[in-house]
């Protein structure tokens, strides 16, 4: 172990982040404190990012560090193998961009002391989770990450919605940690050696392994946002300041995925075939429900948060397929699905952070998150509009951007499903593929709505018509991520090859090397089977578009005149006659929502010549909340009412209660085998 080992450097950086968190309490009081804290975070995240990149691309073997911290007989072990290195890259790339964004955005924070101390702590927590090499440090870092992000969600605690969001988040986070605690308890077994190396060497009975899988899906899935455990996510992510929203949606959910991959692909051992059925079913439901919920929203940040749910579903689809292939020993196919999943992890961290930055820029310059009050921002904020458009196209899986590449790879993995011997999976995987295709097109519809209603058309409020372009730091962060979205879309081969060591270690094989392929195409299996070349498609489009433009301008006409909108001869005077987010989603709400959300529209039409306006009311039900959470909440309330009587007992009744409890406990002890 040398002092310059990447793991040591990252641990030193996290320690510095924690010091920074303490210093922020003092620094937050002075004016330049905000930019000092965020620029320090930016620098530290960059150092961690370089260490992670070095480890991932350098192909050096895993290095580990054991610190004499924590419980005496356990210690704290940290290790960086290829998987942790990849997630370090994802975490710190997002962290660096968010810190850069916050250098401009954070200046508008009205209560900086409620954000500044927790932000570095949150970054430190996420880094520690992905590096942890024993269950104790993992859980400690996980809980630290949850609590620091909870504090950030509560930053604007005077908004009533945020308080309930924070409450739901706290309950769900505790529930998730509890299940992870049980997961690791079962993994460590009665011996109780909590180091990951010992867990990996151990062997679990099939029943226990199945139980561990279910607990791990619930524990990590509640943090990642799998339906029906997602309820906290669309409440909590938008409540935080926008750079934190970007981190929570783009990065923290990925930390949860890293936990899932660590447990299910690394620690449990050989998977059973039916595990993938559990994962795929949940994932398919998650991605379609996530996007349908998103379509019903008109709060820009909440819409983005629901899209995180959708994309987590897509990632879990890929991981589920990888699990199926791995269980049947088809390592090469598992490697394809696994790489596709990890690539989507990376891609989603890029465009989701970018979109939250854009939403933050809009929020900053207009004070509005509700799309119904926005519009026309492309005229006032052209640069933000441009990068937000790139983010929208990337998340909608449109070529030649990066979201398409990972979804294309997942489709290629789905097309290998007939080779699976199990009939259930043969039917399930293409059906999940249909759900994936449905969610991809619904996502495109949703982002037409998000971009079109927010940035296009005419301003619907005074705030929107007075909006101003955001600050240079925020723009730098957004442009960097937009450029990465394009680069990862047109040169995906490099990114796929960088993921090869992880697939080799956890799926048992790697995808064929892509860098040597002529013209920088990607060929997942064989040239005759399928190939895609984002670079050429991009170049062809640029060339043919430019060719058409120059030919028409030169040979035909390049004259242009401005005039009022035509609109079939009835140009509407008021911007309120434009389509809004709700009216845009109305056809889709009618097609899908009437069954899933039991959407009902009622029109109150006043009689002719009556002065009051006509009204359209839409009632939507949240099926997940009503089916799973409302009964629990009612049950807890009823139980609390009953138990309340215990507070008003006489002293004799209290004493007999204590005596009865003592007798019962002694009986249990006596009868325990």
């Amino acid at each position: 172990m040398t002092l310059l080992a990447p793991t040591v450097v990252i641990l030193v950086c996290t320690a510095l982040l924690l010091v920074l968190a303490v210093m922020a309490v003092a620094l937050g009081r002075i004016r330049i404190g905000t930019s000092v804290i965020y620029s320090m975070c930016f620098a530290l995240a960059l150092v961690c990012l370089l260490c992670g990149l070095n480890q991932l691309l350098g192909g050096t073997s895993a290095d580990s560090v054991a610190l004499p911290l924590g419980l005496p007989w356990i210690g704290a072990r940290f290790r960086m193998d290829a998987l942790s290195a990849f997630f370090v890259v994802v975490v710190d790339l997002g962290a660096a961009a968010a810190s850069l964004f916050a250098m401009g955005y954070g200046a508008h924070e009205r209560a900086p002391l409620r954000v500044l101390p927790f932000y570095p702590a949150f970054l430190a927590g996420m880094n520690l989770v992905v590096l942890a090499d024993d269950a104790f440090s993992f859980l400690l870092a996980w809980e630290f990450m949850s609590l620091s992000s909870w504090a950030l969600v509560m930053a604007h605690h005077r908004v009533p919605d945020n308080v309930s969001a924070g409450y739901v988040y706290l309950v769900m986070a505790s529930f998730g940690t509890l299940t992870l605690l049980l997961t690791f308890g079962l993994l460590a077994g009665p011996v109780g050696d909590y180091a990951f190396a010992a867990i990996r060497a151990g062997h679990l009975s099939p029943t226990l392994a199945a139980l561990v899988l279910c607990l791990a899906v619930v524990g990590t899935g509640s943090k990642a946002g799998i339906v029906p455990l997602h309820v906290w996510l669309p409440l909590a992510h938008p409540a935080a300041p926008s750079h934190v929203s970007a981190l929570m949606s783009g990065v923290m959910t990925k930390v949860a995925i890293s936990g899932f991959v660590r447990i299910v692909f690394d620690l449990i051992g050989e998977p059973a075939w039916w595990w993938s059925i559990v994962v795929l079913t949940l994932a398919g439901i998650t991605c379609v429900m996530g996007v349908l919920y998103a379509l019903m929203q008109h709060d820009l940040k909440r819409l983005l948060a629901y899209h995180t749910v959708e994309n987590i579903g897509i990632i879990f689809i890929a991981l589920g397929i990888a699990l199926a292939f791995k269980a049947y020993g088809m390592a090469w196919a598992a490697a394809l699905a696994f790489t596709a999943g990890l690539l989507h992890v990376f891609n989603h961290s890029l465009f989701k952070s970018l979109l939250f930055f854009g939403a933050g820029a809009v929020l900053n310059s207009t004070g509005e998150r509700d799309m119904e009050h926005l519009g026309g921002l492309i005229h006032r904020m052209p640069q933000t509009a441009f990068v937000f458009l790139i983010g929208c196209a990337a998340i909608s899986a449109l070529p030649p951007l990066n979201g398409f590449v990972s979804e294309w790879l997942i489709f290629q993995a789905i097309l290998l499903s007939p080779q699976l011997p199990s009939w259930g999976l043969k039917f399930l995987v293409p059906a999940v593929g249909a759900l994936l295709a449905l969610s991809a097109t619904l996502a495109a519809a949703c982002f037409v709505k998000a971009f079109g209603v927010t940035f296009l058309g005419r301003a619907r409020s005074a705030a929107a018509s007075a909006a101003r372009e955001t600050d240079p730091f925020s723009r730098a962060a957004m442009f960097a991520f937009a450029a990465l979205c394009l680069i990862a879309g047109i040169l995906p081969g490099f990114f796929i090859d960088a993921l090869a060591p992880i697939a080799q270690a956890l799926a048992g094989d790697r995808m064929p090397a892509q860098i040597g392929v002529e013209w920088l195409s990607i060929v997942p299996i064989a040239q005759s089977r399928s190939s895609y070349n984002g670079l050429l498609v991009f170049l062809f489009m640029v060339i043919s578009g430019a060719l058409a433009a120059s030919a028409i301008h030169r040979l035909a006409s390049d004259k242009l005149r401005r005039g009022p909108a035509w609109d079939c001869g009835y140009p509407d005077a008021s911007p309120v006659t434009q389509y809004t987010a709700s009216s845009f989603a109305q056809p889709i709400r009618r097609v899908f929502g009437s069954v899933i959300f039991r959407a009902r529209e009622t029109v109150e039409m006043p009689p002719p010549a009556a002065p009051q306006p006509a009204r359209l009311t839409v009632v939507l039900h949240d099926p997940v909340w009503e089916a799973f959470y409302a009964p629990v909440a009612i049950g807890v309330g009823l139980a609390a009412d009953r138990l309340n009587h215990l507070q008003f007992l006489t002293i004799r009744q209290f004493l007999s209660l204590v005596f009865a409890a003592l007798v019962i406990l002694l009986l249990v002890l006596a009868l325990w085998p």
Partner: protein
Amino acid sequence: MIADLTVQGAQMLVVLLLAPLLTGLVRKIKARMLRRAGPPVIQPYRDLVRLMRKEVVLADTASWLFRVIPYFIFAATWVAASLIPTFRTGLLFSWSADLIAIIALLGSARFALALAGLDVGTSFGGIGSSREVMIASLAEPAMIMIVFTLALTVGSTQLSTMAGYMASPAVGLRVSLALALVALIMVAIAENARIPVDNPATHLELTMVHEAMVLEYSGRHLALIELSAALKLLLYVSLIACLFAPWGMAAPGAGMGALAVGTLAYLGKIAAGGFLLALLETSIAKMRVFRVPEFLGAALMLGLLATLLLFVSRSL
């Protein structure tokens, strides 16, 4: 290499030049079936030239995006159309995008067009965009299920490989393929905004989808949009011909004779496709907008059924 490049270039020009002809042909046949004389077959070319030479009248509220989008749509559609084998398989760049990528390229074009509908901030543009994405949200998954059916049968998503396999006797008679063909035709009708889903000739405000989105376009922008629409129609006819009627296509490296046969066969195929489309459009009425989801839902179910039937019936 040079010969391949020439063929690829010829393909790009052929689709670009033939596209308005197909639109003109469909219009002419429709007119003759209604006992009208109809405009000449080359009328779409004249329209395009006329539109390109006119000045653009741009709405005051239109942004830069509104001016870029026609070029983007044209580029995406043209690239997609040039990658579909028409008279020869194994095009030079055919491996740069497989069938899934071609569909996604058309998705990009539609995404851009739907944004253009919202850009000026009129209610007709909004109605068109919102209905277009609703139609697409069902048509595109159906298309992906059709691709699944074909790709699982052939073992490839590469169009040249698919066309080669479908022309070989190995393909046999399969229920799945028949279902996929029906579903593909339904999707093609919806994607090209034809009757019964949308009416390309309508100017009745409340029934428009495609026309409502492009309502604010004029001059060269409108010309590009019209040309892209024509290209898309040709693309779908070529796709159906390439997958389900791949006869006569020249193999890679074939001589001039085979290329001539391939070109003649291709012309015959698109003429037949245009005739059948015109026949369909004159024989049925347009449906209400909210019947369209049922129509496309049926296509989606057919596609899913076709995929699942593949496993049940191996050779029927």
